[in-house]
């Protein structure tokens, strides 16, 4: 191996790389927020009284979970403008991440909702609460608690998936790293460095979810 390590371009690009980490966080958090909304909304609609609504949710989940994320984001970015819907790379990335993560979140949260004993729902109804109130006030929190570890790993995965958004030049860590690599040819140093960055980002995300668990799901159970 005659390759001589030279971190100069990485060090010179460090402010850009660190700023790009914030871009990665923004995509991840935006995507997660959207995924949670789609996830909870999808779970409610999945049990709608209207059969076409239930089918639509099922079809959405199947479509998204059985196609590649790269194709989904290309579709939104390159194909939708032909239908008149043109979005910038960063909103496109957040929407794509949210839709993709949302489809997985629907299935995960649904599992949590199904784990809630029927008696809990009956107790809420017997107290005069509406179906919607029962879901929001009684079912949702224990359901999320039950599946939060799965949701956490899905969302860490979503965080790492942000790197694929470099394919449409969304502002995030991998895109910026690619630019530095293209101009310096220091592939080993550049990708080695962002590998460490991604490790740290994942760790921060896990701490973030650990903190949510500690704050909101720490009620005692037997």
């Amino acid at each position: 191996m005659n390759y001589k390590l030279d971190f100069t371009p990485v060090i010179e690009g460090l402010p850009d790389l660190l700023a790009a980490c914030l871009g990665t966080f923004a995509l991840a958090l935006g995507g997660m927020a959207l995924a949670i909304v789609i996830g909870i909304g999808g779970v409610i609609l999945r049990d709608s009284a209207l059969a076409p609504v239930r089918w639509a949710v099922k079809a959405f989940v199947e479509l998204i979970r059985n196609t590649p994320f790269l194709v989904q984001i290309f579709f939104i970015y390159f194909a939708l403008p032909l239908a008149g819907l043109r979005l910038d790379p960063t909103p496109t990335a957040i929407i794509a991440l949210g839709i993709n993560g949302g489809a997985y979140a629907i299935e995960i949260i649904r599992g949590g909702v199904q784990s809630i004993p029927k008696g809990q729902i009956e107790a809420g109804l017997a107290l005069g609460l509406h179906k919607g109130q029962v879901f929001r006030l009684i079912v949702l929190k224990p359901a999320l608690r039950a599946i939060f570890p799965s949701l956490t790993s899905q969302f860490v995965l979503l965080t790492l998936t942000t790197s694929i958004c470099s394919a449409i030049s969304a502002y995030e860590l991998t895109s910026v790293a690619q630019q530095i690599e293209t101009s310096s040819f220091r592939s080993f140093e550049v990708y080695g460095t962002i590998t460490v960055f991604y490790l740290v980002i994942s760790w921060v995300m896990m701490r973030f979810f650990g903190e949510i668990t500690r704050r909101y799901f720490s009620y005692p159970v037997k």
Partner: protein
Amino acid sequence: MTQADAMKGSAAQAEPMIAMNHVEKWYGDYKALTDINLSVRKGERIVLCGPSGSGKSTLIRCINHLESYQKGEIRVSGTKVDDNARTIDAVRREVGMVFQHFNLFPHMTVLDNCMLAPMRSLGAGKAEAEATARQLLGRVKILEQADKYPSQLSGGQQQRVAIARALCMKPKVMLFDEPTSALDPEMVKEVLDTMIGLAEEGMTMICVTHEMGFARQVADRVIFMADGAIVEEATPEAFFSAPSHERTRKFLGEILRQH
């Protein structure tokens, strides 16, 4: 008091608290309730017993529409219980229910369990709901546990909280669905004592239970069900000393042997 007497009495007074007329219910092809006729006056205490699968839980769950019924009519203080969402809400606000497995909400403290429905369903203010909750938790002798979570309480304590939670809605009727069946024997008494106290204060109650001592002590009428129908209905004295049906005698023989 016979069914006929009860009907006469209720006709003389105002509307009965609960009126079930020719109620029938099916689960698919299976007939769960057959021609149920039951009239409960204000302040009356009914004990409902019978072998498992006889339809007693199904009967009381029809009263607050946790189960629908296909034929006949149920009225709760005059309001017809049907599939109309608004009347279901109105009825449920007047009918409290206590379940076999307590069904306290695990993610809320005891106090919050008791405050939730008055605030969300009746629109009570926080201070008002808390005052009511504390008063009723005191009445079931569990006020000192108000800030604990359900999982930190014993079964008997949880069931007393469940009774207080239902009472916080200021119901006109209380339904008890085997409230002591899931309890360890040493905890049965504390729950029964709470129920006896409630009965003595004049609460209208329908209790599905096999606690025959409770039936003797507080019931105005004992109703025996088998195969989805009411077989026998009598005062506790008559029911225990001279049951008129063979099914009742057999059931009592089995129940009393266990005790």
